[in-house]
């Protein structure tokens, strides 16, 4: 009976799934960036146009969307630093799994903090 390979740095398990997550979050962030430069550019059209469109970011549904976007950014940022460590640190490849779990732990901590602060501001009394 053939045995499954244990997986390599980029095939299967932590290495591959973090790579998949990095791609998906990267594409999501890129498309938001295109939209975000366009909406910010409205400051050059008129103050009212900018304030009206930016108002769309202030409804409760968008608050959840912003939290999701920041979740994507924070994962991409921390996992990006992990990739740099894998590439440049002598023991990076050896500890890539532990580093991914560190990334995920930090991501949870940062996102709990961000969500509490942003959602209470965005959804709170105003």
């Amino acid at each position, binding site marked *: 009976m053939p045995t499954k390979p244990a997986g*390599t740095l980029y095939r299967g398990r932590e290495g591959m799934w973090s790579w998949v997550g990095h*791609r998906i979050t*990267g*594409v999501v*962030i*890129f498309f938001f*960036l*295109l939209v975000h*430069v*366009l909406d*910010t*550019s409205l*400051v*050059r059209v*008129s*103050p*009212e146009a*900018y*304030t009206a469109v*930016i108002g769309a*970011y*202030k409804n409760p549904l968008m*608050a959840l969307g*912003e939290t999701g976007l*920041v979740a994507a*950014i924070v994962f991409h*940022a921390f996992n*990006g*630093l992990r*990739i*740099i460590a894998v*590439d*440049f640190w002598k023991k990076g490849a050896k500890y890539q799994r532990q580093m991914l779990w560190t990334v995920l732990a930090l991501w949870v901590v940062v996102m709990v903090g*961000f969500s509490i*602060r*942003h959602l209470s*501001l*965005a959804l709170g009394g*105003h």
Partner: protein
Amino acid sequence: MSATQIQSPRSGGAKVGSNRIAPQYRRTGGSKGNFEMLAWLFMRLSGVVLVVLIFGHLTVNLLVGEGIHAIDFGFVAGKWADPFWQVWDLAMLWLAMLHGTNGVRTIINDYAEKDATRLWLKIVLYAATTVIIILGTMVIFTFDPCPVVNGVQLPGGFCPSP
């Protein structure tokens, strides 16, 4: 019995010889010099800088004071009155766009198998990138906190009281 050779799809440079890339992953004739290595290096260098720039951007715009409710025309005008934030946002715009464009370029190269499909997807990508970078740069440098049209101040502007 020799050890198994594992082909790494993206590790073959032109100098080493394109035979290090398995044929089904080879996308060019292999005359790109060390462009791919420079692109790889750029992703890491810009990535580190972007972590600082974007975390700072999110903290100042979403977490401090009233958070998102404070963002309006006056908020942007207040930030861009300071060259510090102009440079910050300009660096963020250029680095994020180039980092993102190179990421999407990699994805196009990975998944679009037909030459013509890759060509057209990249033409669209580079066109969008060029437009967005030029537009964003011009907005940062030509921003007017107190826009006046035909001698009349536009409502909502950040004008000093007369």
